[in-house]
C-alpha cells in the first residue's frame, strides 16, 4: 500500500514509541506518508529528524489501512545517508560486523577496555551512549563450531546472526542441540551480517553488499534442500522483508519462501510429524517481552505457544512496549534519552507482572531490559533447552 492510502487516523502515532518521548520526532504519520508528498528527488533532503525513527515497525503493525510508514521512513533514511556525511557512530555501527569480528578475536582485551572509564569516555566522545553495558565479546564464536550432520530428512541451515555469533555463541550451541534432539540436521552456512545495522545507519551500499553475499550462500543451501532458520527476529525480518523491498536482492523471494523462525519451525515439525515432546518442569515466573520485530514477522508468538506447554512455567506476554534500544539506535548519544525513557517504561511494565526474569527472542531487547532492570534475561531457546533436559543429557554423555 502506498502513502496515498493513509487516512490520517493517527493510530500509528499512538503506537510510536519515539514520538511518545522525543518531541523532536514528528511521528510516523508526518515523517512517513505526510512528508513523502513533499519529497522531491531533485532536491537534497534536509529532514535530519528522519534519523530519529528507530524502525521498530509498530506503526506498520497498527495501521488499519496497510500503509507502511516505517518503510517510507527507511527509504528516506537511506537517502539522507547517501546525501550527507556519516557521523562516526553511524559508520561504526553500520560496520558492526567487522568490528565485532575484531572484538571477538581480541575478546579478553576488548571486553576489558570497553568496561573502563577511559573506554567509556572515548565512546561518549564518538557519540556513543554508555547507559547500559556493552555486550561482552566471546572468543569462541559460533562460526568456529564444528558442523552437526546426520542422516535426517529435515535439514536446516542456521542463520545465527551477529549477536549469537560474537556475544552469545552458547545460545547458538543450545539451539543446535535442541534441533538435533528433534532429529533435524543443522549446518552453519557461510554468512555475514544480515545488513540491518548498515540499513539502520543509512548505509545502503554496505547493507546491499552484505545481503548479496548472504543471499548467494543461503540460496545454494535452499537448492540443496535446506530450510533456512533464524533465531534473531531482526535478522529474520531483514531477510524476509528488506531483502525484497529495500535491497532488491535477486534471490530474496526464494529465501523468504524457505525461512523460518526457530520456534515457528519447531512448532511446524511437532505438528507435521506428530512429535510428542516431553517438556520437563521449569519452575520460573517469566515476563515475555515481545520484540517489535517478532510482531512484524506476522507469525504470531510461536515461542509463547511452546512455553505454554512447559509445566511449572508462568509466562506473561507483554507486547505493548518497545524496549527502546532498537539495535545500535539506542547506543547513539543522540538517541540516549529516548532509549533510556522507553527502556525504563518497558521495565516498569515487566516489574508489575512480578516476574523474576525476562524472556525475549531479541538479543538487543535482552541487553536493554536486563541493563535497566538488573534482572536476568533469557532467550526462549534457553528456556526450551532447560525444559527438554538437554543440559542433563549432555552431562550424562560426558
Amino acid at each position, binding site marked *: 500500500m502506498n502513502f496515498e492510502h493513509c*487516512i490520517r*487516523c*493517527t*493510530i500509528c*502515532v*499512538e*503506537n510510536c514509541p519515539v*514520538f*511518545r*518521548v522525543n*518531541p523532536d520526532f514528528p511521528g510516523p504519520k508526518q515523517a512517513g506518508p505526510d512528508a513523502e508528498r513533499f519529497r522531491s528527488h531533485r532536491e537534497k533532503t534536509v529532514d535530519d529528524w528522519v534519523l530519529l525513527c528507530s524502525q521498530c515497525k509498530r506503526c*506498520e*503493525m*497498527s*495501521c*488499519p*489501512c*496497510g500503509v507502511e510508514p516505517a518503510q517510507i521512513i527507511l527509504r528516506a533514511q537511506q537517502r539522507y545517508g547517501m546525501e550527507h556525511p556519516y557521523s562516526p557512530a553511524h559508520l561504526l555501527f553500520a560496520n558492526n560486523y567487522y568490528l565485532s569480528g575484531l572484538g571477538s578475536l581480541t575478546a579478553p582485551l576488548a571486553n576489558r577496555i570497553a568496561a573502563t572509564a577511559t573506554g567509556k569516555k572515548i565512546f561518549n566522545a564518538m557519540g556513543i551512549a554508555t547507559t547500559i553495558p556493552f555486550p561482552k565479546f566471546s572468543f569462541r564464536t559460533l562460526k568456529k563450531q564444528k558442523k552437526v550432520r546426520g542422516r535426517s530428512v529435515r535439514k536446516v541451515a542456521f542463520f545465527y546472526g551477529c549477536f549469537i555469533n560474537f556475544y552469545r555463541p552458547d545460545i547458538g550451541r543450545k539451539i543446535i542441540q535442541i534441533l538435533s534432539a528433534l532429529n533435524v540436521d543443522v549446518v552453519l552456512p557461510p554468512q555475514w551480517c544480515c545488513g540491518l545495522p548498515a540499513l539502520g545507519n543509512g548505509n545502503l551500499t554496505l547493507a546491499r553488499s552484505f545481503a548479496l553475499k548472504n543471499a548467494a550462500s543461503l540460496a545454494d543451501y535452499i537448492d540443496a534442500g535446506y530450510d533456512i532458520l533464524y533465531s534473531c527476529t531482526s535478522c529474520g525480518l531483514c531477510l*524476509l*522483508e528488506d531483502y*525484497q*523491498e529495500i535491497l532488491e536482492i535477486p534471490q530474496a*523471494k526464494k*529465501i*523468504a*519462501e*524457505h*525461512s*523460518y523462525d526457530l520456534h*515457528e519451525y519447531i*512448532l*511446524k515439525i511437532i*505438528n507435521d510429524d506428530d512429535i510428542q515432546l516431553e517438556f520437563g518442569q521449569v519452575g520460573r515466573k517469566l515476563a515475555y517481552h515481545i520484540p517489535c520485530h517478532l*510482531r*512484524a514477522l*506476522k*507469525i*504470531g*508468538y510461536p515461542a*509463547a*505457544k511452546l512455553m505454554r506447554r512447559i509445566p511449572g512455567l508462568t509466562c506473561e*506476554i507483554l507486547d*505493548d512496549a518497545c524496549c527502546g534500544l532498537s539495535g545500535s539506535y539506542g547506543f547513539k548519544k543522540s538517541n540516549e534519552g529516548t532509549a533510556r525513557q522507553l527502556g525504563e517504561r518497558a521495565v516498569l511494565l515487566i516489574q508489575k507482572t512480578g516476574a523474576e526474569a525476562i524472556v525475549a527472542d531479541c538479543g538487543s531487547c535482552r541487553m536493554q531490559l536486563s541493563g535497566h532492570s538488573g534482572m536476568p534475561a533469557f532467550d526462549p531457546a534457553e528456556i526450551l533447552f532447560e525444559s527438554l533436559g538437554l543440559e542433563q543429557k549432555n552431562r550424562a554423555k560426558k
Partner: protein
Amino acid sequence: MSVVEYDIVVIGAGVAGLTAGARLAEHGYRVALVTTGEPTACLSTGCIDLCANGARPLYAARELPREHPLHLVSDTDIAEAFGRFLEVMRERGRVYTGSLEHNRCVLSALGTLKTTCLTPAGMAASPQSDNEVIRIITFSGLKDFYPKYILSRFAHASFSSYDAGASTTMGIASRLERDEYLEAFIVWLEKLDIRENKIGLPAVLGMKNTAEVIRRIESRLERPVFEIPTLPPSMPGRRLFNDLKDHFRNKGGDIFWSWPVVGVEKAGGLIEAVFTRTEGKPNSLNARAFVLATGSFVGGGLTATRQTITENVFDLPVHVPSGREGWFDEDYFSPDHRIGKVGVCVDSSFRPEHSHWENIFVCGGILAHAQILKNGCGHGLSLATGYAAAGSCAEYLK
C-alpha cells in the same frame, strides 16, 4: 507453508471481535484473532452507546426498526454482554458508569451534550446540562481543542490554560503519569483557586492509570473532575482497546497483528482456512469456525466502488440500497444517509444470509441496517452482537 490450527479464528480486533474472542476463549476454545491494524475503537471516545434515541437505551433499542441487528440479541444476552463488560473493566481498574435503564450525557469538545449509555470513569462527572458551573482546563498548543466552543454553549463556564511542555494528547497523557509532572500540574491548579463546581479537561489524564490521576486531582481540588473526549489520538478509545485486548489475551487468545486476510480456503459449505499476505511462504490459519468482525467502511470490512459494495474477507452478499443515488441524502449532515444501512444481513444464529457457509458468524459494525450514526448504537451493538455471535458459534462447535 506454516499452518497453524485453531478452533476459531476471529477477524477484526474491535469491540465486537475482542468480545466474541474472549467469550469463546472462556469456553475453552483455542482462539486466534487476526487484524490488519488497530481498530477504529482506538479513535472512539471509549463510551458505550446502545441506542441514543431516547432516555432509556434498552427500551429505545427495542423501538428500532424491525430489521435492526440489535433485535437479534435477546434482552438477557444484552444484559449479560453489558454485565460481563462492566465486570471485566472493573477487574482492570476501569470503572464504567451507567446502566441499560438510563442514558447519560457526555460533554463533547464542541460543547454539545452527547447521549450515551456507559461512560468510562473519567467521564462519570461529565455535566448533564448546560447550566452546570464548570471550569475548563486546556493545555497550551493542544490542537483541536478550543474551550471557547464550550464556553459559547455554557452560561457558567470559564477556562484556563496550562503549559505542559507538550502539545499532543499522547505527550501530555504520558507526562501526567509521571509523579513530578502530575504534582506540578496539581500545584498550578491549586493556585488557580477554582470556585466552579466541576473541572473539565481534554481526555489526557494518563494513558493507563486514569482513575489514579483523577483521584489525585479530585482529592486535592475537592471537586469532581471530568474528561472531555478529543479528536484522535483519543486516549479513552485507546484505553478501552488495550483493556479488551489484554482481557482476550488473559483468557488464552492469540493475536496476529498486521494480518489482513487475503485468501480463503473453502470446502463444501465450510471455510477451512484464511491466508494473509506475506513476503515469502503463505501464512495460513486453519479453524473450525470463523467470526467476522471487520467493521464497515473505515474499519476495513467493506469496500465501496462506483458501482457496488463488497465484503472484503469472504465476499459475502452485501445489502446495498438500490441505485447509487439512493446511498446518500441531500443534506450532507443528515444522519439518515442510507449507506449507513449497508452491511451483511444475518439470520438469528448470526450466519450470513443468502450464502451457504455454515461456519461463519458475523457481528459488530459490519451488520446491515445498523445505521450507527443515526441510532447512536456504536460499541453497544458490537458488545451485544459480539457476545451473542460467540454464543451461537460455541453452540455450533459443541
